[in-house]
C-alpha cells in the first residue's frame, strides 16, 4: 500500500534528531510536527520570523500579529524568539537551520528540485523556497512518487523551472525513501507491501538498488 500523507509525515519525523532546528514547508511537511518522536526536542523555524513555533492557538489565544509562514494563526512556545525577515533568512541562508522539509513537483538524480512554477499556469511565486533549499544543511523532499497519470516525479533531469540545484539529499515518497548521491537515487526503504519492481517502474531517473531493500518501520 502506498503511504497516506500522515504516514509520509510519520516517516519524515524519523529523520528528526534531538536539538534540531527545523523548517517545515506547507502541506505534508507541516504534518511532521505532529509526529516528533518521544524523547527528542526540536525547534520549529517559521521563515516570517519565528523560532520556536507552537501549535495553533485556542480561540482565546488568537492574535492577528502572531502568524506562521503559511499566514495561519499560530502560537510561540516558551523560549521562542521573534525577529525580522532579514534575520530569519540570515539563519536560513547561513546554514543554521539543520533540516528543511518541503514538497516538490519534480526532483532529479542530481539533487535538483522544481517546486514553484508550472509554465502556462499562473505563477504565484517562490516565497522562501529558493532561500530554504540554498541554505539548509539537510533537505528532505516529500512528494508522491508519480503523478496521478503514473508519470514519475523522480527524473533524470527536472523539466520544470528549478527552485535550486544540487541540494536535495533525501526524498520520502508514498512508495519509498531514497537518498540522492553521486548522480543517482539510492533506494533505502520501501513502503510496506510495495515491491522494488514497482518503485523501479515509477522512477524515471537512475535508481541504485543494493541488496535487499527493507520495508519502512512505523512505531
Amino acid at each position, binding site marked *: 500500500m502506498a503511504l497516506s500523507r500522515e504516514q509520509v509525515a510519520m516517516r519524515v519525523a524519523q529523520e528528526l534528531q534531538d536539538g534540531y532546528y527545523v523548517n517545515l514547508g506547507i502541506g505534508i511537511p507541516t504534518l511532521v510536527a505532529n509526529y516528533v518522536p518521544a524523547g527528542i526536542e526540536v525547534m520549529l523555524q517559521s521563515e*516570517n520570523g519565528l523560532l520556536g513555533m507552537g501549535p*495553533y492557538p485556542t480561540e482565546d489565544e488568537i492574535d492577528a500579529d502572531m502568524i506562521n509562514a503559511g499566514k495561519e*494563526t499560530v502560537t*510561540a512556545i516558551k523560549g521562542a524568539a521573534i525577529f*525580522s525577515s*532579514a534575520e530569519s533568512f540570515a539563519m536560513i541562508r547561513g546554514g543554521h537551520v539543520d533540516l528543511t522539509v518541503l514538497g516538490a513537483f519534480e526532483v532529479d538524480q542530481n539533487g535538483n528540485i522544481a517546486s514553484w512554477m508550472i509554465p502556462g499556469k499562473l505563477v504565484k511565486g*517562490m*516565497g522562501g523556497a*529558493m532561500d530554504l533549499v540554498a541554505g539548509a544543511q539537510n533537505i528532505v523532499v516529500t512528494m508522491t512518487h508519480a503523478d496521478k497519470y503514473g508519470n514519475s516525479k523522480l527524473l533524470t533531469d527536472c523539466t520544470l523551472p528549478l527552485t535550486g540545484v544540487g541540494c536535495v539529499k533525501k526524498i520520502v515518497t508514498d512508495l519509498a525513501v531514497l537518498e540522492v548521491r553521486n548522480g543517482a537515487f539510492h533506494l533505502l526503504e520501501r513502503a510496506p507491501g510495495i515491491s522494488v519492481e514497482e518503485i523501479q517502474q515509477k522512477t524515471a531517473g537512475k535508481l541504485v538498488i543494493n541488496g535487499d531493500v527493507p520495508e519502512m518501520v512505523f512505531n
Partner: protein
Amino acid sequence: MAGFNKVVHSYEDAMAGLQDGMTVIAGGFGLCGIPEGLIAQIKKMQTKDLTVVSNNCGVDGFGLGILLEDRQIKKMVASYVGENALFEKQLLSGELEVELTPQGTLAEKMRAGGAGIPAFFTATGYGTPVAEGKETREINGRNYVLEESITGDFAIVRAWKADRYGNLVFRHTSMNFNPMAATAGKITVAEVEEIVEPGELEPSQIHTPGIYVQRVIKGNFEKRIERRMVRQG
C-alpha cells in the same frame, strides 16, 4: 527640538510628497503587520504608476490589494502573490508587471539598500530563472548570484509603539519585513498603534532606531486575519 518631533496628525501629512511613478516599499507579511491607513491614503491620493516592493500584494479589497482597484500599481516586486484575483487578472492582461523575488533575497535587498550596500552575492536562485541575466560568481567552490539592493522614494511600515523621535518597536510576528523596509525609504512613514513618551521605550529593546524614520502617525488597525486556525482548548 521640533526637528525631532516626527509625529504627524493627518494621513495627508503622512504621505505628503508621494508622486506618480515613485517606488514605495511596504512592510508586512500577508496581511500581518501592514500599514493599513497609509495604504488607504495612497488609494485616496490616486497616485499612479507606482512600483511597489512588498513580500505580498494583499488580498482582494484589503491591504495593498486595494491599490490594484484603480490600477495604481505599475510594477510589483514580491515573493508570493497568489492571494488575489484582481492581481491575477491584471497580471495575465499585461497591465501589471511583476518581478518575483525569493523571500530572503527580497529581505536582504531592502536591508542592503538601507545599509548602503549596492548589491550582494547569494546562493539563492543560482541555476534557476531568478538568476537569468544576472552576474554569477564562484566563491570557494560555490556558485552565487549578484543581487542588487532596493531603496524606495517612500517606505511605509507598521509598528506597535513609537516615540516622537521615530524609535519603533514591533509586536510579535508583525515585525517581518517592517524593520528592513524602514531603513530603505528616502521618506519612511511609520503607522503605529501607540505613541509613547521619549524614554518609555527601553533603548536597548528598540527594533528600529528613529534615525531611519521621518514621520510617525497613530493609526487604527483592523488587523484582518488571513487564515484563522484554532485548536480545541
